[in-house]
């Protein structure tokens, strides 16, 4: 997996990752890619999001980074999962939840302003924003 490209302009870089790319990755590869981007200060948009199990792995990795470094944690924006329960899906071992588009960033760069079932508003905090502005964002 290529590393995120360098940002030639001042400001935040947003990297969008397609569903096709995600489908060919293992859960650990997805978590590795996300964390590489996020630790580097980038915002990641996943077209198809993460399963609950993948999200658990992301949380575990995040906790590990917080413990080992000054990493503050992550902010994630995603809509509620669509529940697709049916006895046939369960018997065929198909996912019972449908993943949805997800936005992930460092918790000091991405701040949730408002969330609802079908609406998410986030603020992006520039790395060189004054401390007071960061706190209010």
């Amino acid at each position: 997996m290529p590393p995120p490209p360098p940002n030639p302009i001042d400001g935040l870089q947003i990297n969008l990752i397609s569903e096709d790319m995600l489908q060919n990755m293992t859960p650990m590869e997805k978590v590795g890619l996300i964390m590489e981007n996020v630790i580097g200060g980038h915002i990641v948009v996943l077209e198809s999001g993460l399963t609950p199990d993948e999200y658990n792995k992301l949380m575990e990795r995040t906790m590990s980074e917080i413990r080992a470094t000054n990493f503050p944690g992550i902010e994630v924006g995603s809509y509620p999962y669509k529940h697709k329960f049916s006895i046939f899906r369960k018997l065929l071992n198909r996912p019972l939840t449908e993943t949805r588009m997800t936005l992930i960033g460092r918790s000091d760069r991405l701040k949730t302003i408002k969330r609802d079932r079908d609406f998410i508003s986030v603020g992006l905090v520039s790395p060189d924003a004054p401390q007071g502005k960061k706190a209010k964002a």
Partner: protein
Amino acid sequence: MGLTSRLQGLLKRVFGKKRNPRIGIYGPPNAGKTTLANRILRDFTGDVMGSVSPVPHETRRVRRREGVVIQANGSQVTMDIVDTPGLATKIDFEEFIKVHGMASEEAKRRAKEATEGVVEAIKWIDDCDGILLVLDATEDPYTQVNIVTVGNMEARGKPMVVVANKIDLPNAAPARIKSAFPQHPMVQISAREGQNIDKLYETLAKHFT
């Protein structure tokens, strides 16, 4: 889960020794999980689960109490209660210093233990047969942690009861929690005051037997 392991699980359920259902108390930090665990234990065993505090991440290790007999409305159910640390995606030790006046070393230790607690709570999800998702009724329910906790249980096909806690507070809005997760039963309570707690016990007996 493959067909073989599913078959093994079925055989174990048919022929194995039946154990008590294990119910995990999950939710974000400061939602009142340990306060609820204490309320349940105090009502049925005379004991408590752990200490509570207004400072987030007071519970940093999973605690389990086995064989709690819950009586409700003439019926009873025996279950193991698992109280878990609050789930979070960010833990900032500086917040413990700035907001809660902790010394630097104590704040760093608390943050480190809290990160370990989050990982431990995640690992316990598969060991629970059902969960109580405890949410602070004065807070926004559409957080990522809440969404993923619900997703975890739905993906595993395990039962869940949503508990809208802190309804004794003036700005509590339990209806907002119900509208966020309408597919699951919800009980509104005050774990601290004991308000509506019998309704929760009835719901536990109904959904986790």
